[in-house]
């Protein structure tokens, strides 16, 4: 938005919302909305404590491993589905089912199948992220301009060349879009995993703080999580914008 000809940064309205939060908090409307400044102060005091660092590293570990496997498995599977009709017809119904299924309901099954503890949390995270990544990579490949494939073949491209020099790049805008949505879903997944399976990481902190009504602590952790999700998603959105110049022209 422009004010007096000056372009306001896209996310600057968050400052406005932060102010509103501070005011509501100061007004003491309810005890579970403490003023933002108090929350920030609490965040400052807890952020270095070993318990917090441990929770953070546990969460980050599950999240990073989960997202990483979702990407590493999801992108090739999606590309292969886009290329092979048989594979696509076999897998697509399941991808659609898992994309739309309430995964929360599946969490108990996952625990039985994949064990309890970190492994299941990572798998939950992966499951939250992977389907949209597969679907988007597939869509990216499906809409590829056939001429590009023909062109590469006519100049003698090997299958490997075609995969890395054509398919991957042609699908990249969709792949990045899928990863961005996937990452956002993964944040939900990791917390749901940490709350519904074994209570570790930020999930444990949330549980602890909310059952003990430590609202400032609660919001402090939430802020960290928001910041984490927000940063990653904006980073990916930035990458997406970098390739968007060719997205509409393939």
């Amino acid at each position, binding site marked *: 938005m422009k004010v007096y000809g000056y372009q306001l940064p896209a996310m600057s309205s968050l400052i406005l919302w932060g102010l509103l939060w501070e005011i509501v908090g100061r007004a003491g409307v309810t005890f579970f909305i403490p003023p933002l400044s108090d929350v920030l102060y609490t965040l400052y005091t807890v952020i270095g404590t070993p318990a917090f660092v441990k929770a953070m590293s546990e969460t980050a570990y599950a999240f990073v491993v989960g997202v990483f496997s979702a990407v590493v498995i999801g992108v090739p599977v999606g590309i292969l589905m886009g290329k092979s009709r048989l594979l696509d017809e076999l897998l697509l119904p399941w991808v659609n089912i898992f994309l*739309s299924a309430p995964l929360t309901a599946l969490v108990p099954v996952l625990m039985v199948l994949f064990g309890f503890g970190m492994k299941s949390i990572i798998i939950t995270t992966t499951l939250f992220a992977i389907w949209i990544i597969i679907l988007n990579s597939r869509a990216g490949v499906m809409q590829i301009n056939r001429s590009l494939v023909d062109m590469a073949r006519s100049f003698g491209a090997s299958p490997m060349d075609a995969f890395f020099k054509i398919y991957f790049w042609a699908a990249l805008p969709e792949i990045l879009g899928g990863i961005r949505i996937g990452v956002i879903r993964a944040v939900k997944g990791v917390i749901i995993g940490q709350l519904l399976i074994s209570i570790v990481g930020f999930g444990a902190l949330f549980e602890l703080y909310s059952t003990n009504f430590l609202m400032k602590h609660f919001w402090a952790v939430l802020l960290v999580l928001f910041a984490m999700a927000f940063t990653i998603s904006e980073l990916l959105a930035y990458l997406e914008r970098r390739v968007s110049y060719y997205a509409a022209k393939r």
Partner: protein
Amino acid sequence: MLKRSILLKLLSAAIVFGAWEIAGRIPVSYAFPTFLESMSALITLTLEGTIFTAYAETLKPLVVGVIISAVLGIGLGLWIGLSAKFDWLFSPIFIVMQSAPLAALIPLLVMAYGIGLTSKVFVVCIMAMPVIVLNTSGAVRNTPSVFKEMARSFLASERDIIFKVIIPAASPIIFSGLRLGISAGFIGAILSELKITPTGVGDIITYSRSIADYPSMYAAIFSIILLAVLFLNVLEKLENYLFEGNNRGYASD
């Protein structure tokens, strides 16, 4: 061609259910029933009518929440997409909301809105709305300007442009937002039944788990997934019916 695709669907279903049956027979765990046990539990639940009363309960917050999210979400999305001011003010809120770890927020919601329908509807809305709003606003913003220009040259009013150009042009993305939103809404509904008050299907899951009746628990999980998939198929049909020309078919064929 149609036959082949149905055949493949059946084949892939047979593979998955077969694997389930085998895993249940090994068994991978005492808490993991076989496919057949689960299905017979599902039949029992259906015959007893338990499943219907449960869904009557579960669908209440879900349907209300999804309708609110769809109407409000598309409306807000249109508004945000059309007005730079609104975009600046509200987009970040929904981006933040989209990454909100809702499971953690549920205690707060219970404190604010109690344990009744309101909280659950709220949970569904928080889950479903951001993706609907963001998809809609993005699609509206990206409506190809040639269409708008063409309509203007044929004397379209602002209203015409919104209803006859922008919405149909944005409809595939709006619908994919709705799809993701509804699936998120399902997650929210189940989450609220697991974490706020166990009613409906959430109750069948938690109760049969607490009495170690695992086949019933799996039957309930199976049924909710089935329902979600059915729901989304209906939505897809609706989309194809409303905007037939947007369906361009298999790109590779």
